[in-house]
């Protein structure tokens, strides 16, 4: 066990937060602090570093209980604004997934499909308090005789609406280019032929899991900013994979850790939960997430000081390689370079565009900072740390 010069506990930091004495900075501000004062001094001074990310996160959805009808019904098929929800849960429960497309959508039959409405938009409409057409079908049982029902509802008519996202806040993600000769339409946006543009999708130095690369403080029960209110880390996310190549600073150089998140949709805001239509690909949901990282020791101070120049990802060809399952990195690129607006690949300068909103990520980190400073948001000590590599 490594010995530290600074040793703080969640409990001690929470005590400071309660008394309005905690020193909180954003992950952006922490870069300068550690550079000027060093990790040890920073660890003594700073208690919490806040992070943020706002991007389309496909593996998201909402568990809904819409309450019993009269006569009662075992709703086995459910639609919200004509978007199918999964009804095989219980009599009046369903799960609406972010990427489900509205029934009757032409999809990609006229390529590229526009995907103007789907699960992500239903979720945004719910959060915004908009009226939603709920349509139910059942097969009729002795206890649940009703077979069909349609009515207008808003989120306030629901007994429960729980956002439960199986995979969010990817620790790192590919940079995408297209080496083929035709324009392609992907979940990484439209990629023009012969490497005419490159897209990427993380908030880099502000991104939650980049600031705790070995997930030493994040686990089940970590309290987070989710969709404009407080939420929690429920589990490690699907596809969570800590065993990847890392830089000297411990930061994964490719897609690695993920988190499953949970929170009360009824308390969320449509500013932070936004439906997304991805041309030629489908529907998704922008989700706003921020994680407060407790500075328990000088190592955590060092981790949270990571900056874009020291965070790397891989560039992949989405024209041929990626769709065929060929994992071949074209080069390694830093987020500093990606955020500069151009990267160089095979001697060619390629303009870059993010899919993740750095502006909104900053807003989340600052909001979380305010909540903690005001004492309205306490750190949640994880019951179990996310699976990770040993350091």
């Amino acid at each position, binding site marked *: 066990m490594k010995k530290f010069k600074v040793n703080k506990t969640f409990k001690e930091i929470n005590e400071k937060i309660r008394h309005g004495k905690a020193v909180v900075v954003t992950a952006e501000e922490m870069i300068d602090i550690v550079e000027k004062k060093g990790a040890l001094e920073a660890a003594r001074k700073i208690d919490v570093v806040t992070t943020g990310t706002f991007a389309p996160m496909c593996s998201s959805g909402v568990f809904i209980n819409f309450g019993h009808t009269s006569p009662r019904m075992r709703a086995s098929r459910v639609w919200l604004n004509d978007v199918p929800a999964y009804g095989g849960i219980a009599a009046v429960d369903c799960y609406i997934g972010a990427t489900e497309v509205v029934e009757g959508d032409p999809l990609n039959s006229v390529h590229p499909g526009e995907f103007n409405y789907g699960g992500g938009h239903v979720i945004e409409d719910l959060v915004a308090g908009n009226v939603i057409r709920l349509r139910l079908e059942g097969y009729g049982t002795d206890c649940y005789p009703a077979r069909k029902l349609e009515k207008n509802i808003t989120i306030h008519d629901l007994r429960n609406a729980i956002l439960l996202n199986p995979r969010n806040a990817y620790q790192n993600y590919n940079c995408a280019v297209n080496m083929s000769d035709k324009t392609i339409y992907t979940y990484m946006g439209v990629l023009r032929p012969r490497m005419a543009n490159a897209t990427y999708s993380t908030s880099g130095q502000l991104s939650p899991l980049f600031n705790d690369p070995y997930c030493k403080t994040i686990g089940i029960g970590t309290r987070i900013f989710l969709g404009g209110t407080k939420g929690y880390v429920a589990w490690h996310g699907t596809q969570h994979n800590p065993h990847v190549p890392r830089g000297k600073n411990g930061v994964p150089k490719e897609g690695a850790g993920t988190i499953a998140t949970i929170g009360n949709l009824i308390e969320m805001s449509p500013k932070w939960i936004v439906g997304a239509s991805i041309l030629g690909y489908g529907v998704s949901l922008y989700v706003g997430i921020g994680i407060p990282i407790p500075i328990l020791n000088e190592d955590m101070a060092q981790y949270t000081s990571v900056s874009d120049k020291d965070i790397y990802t891989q560039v992949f060809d989405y024209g041929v390689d990626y769709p065929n399952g060929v994992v071949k990195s074209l080069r390694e690129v830093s987020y500093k370079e990606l955020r500069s607006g151009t990267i160089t690949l095979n001697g060619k300068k390629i303009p870059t565009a*993010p899919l993740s909103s750095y502006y*909104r990520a900053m807003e989340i980190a600052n909001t979380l900072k305010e909540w903690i400073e005001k004492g309205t948001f306490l750190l949640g000590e994880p019951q179990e740390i996310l699976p990770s590599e040993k350091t």
Partner: protein
Amino acid sequence: MYSRKVIIHYTADIVDQPIVHRLVKDYDLAFNILKARILPKREGLLVLDLVGTKENFDRGIRYLKKSGVKVEPLSDRVTQNTDRCVHCGACIAFCSTGALYIDKKTMMVLFDAEKCNGCELCVTACPARAMEIDLF
């Protein structure tokens, strides 16, 4: 040199008049056709980038208005819905004129309507559907 992008709406009864030709001959304006659409009843619209002296440009616009076509700046018809925009930046990969760009200081996505040429690529490229164009 003065340069402005304008939308010209014309009706079926004047479609046979060489109005763009007059802009060149009488008002010494260079033009670049950015878009041209003719609708079923032969009414339509032209999006032109007009370049000339400010005086000639103003005179040319007066001529257009007098000849019965409706003229308006393209920039009036293309807007960034700031309530919808989440400032992700996905649009900047499409915008060939640099009208959409990320302000490096604030990291906000900004829209310079004067630079826009009305190509409409951003409308469906924006995942949040924040770009609105209404040319008609």
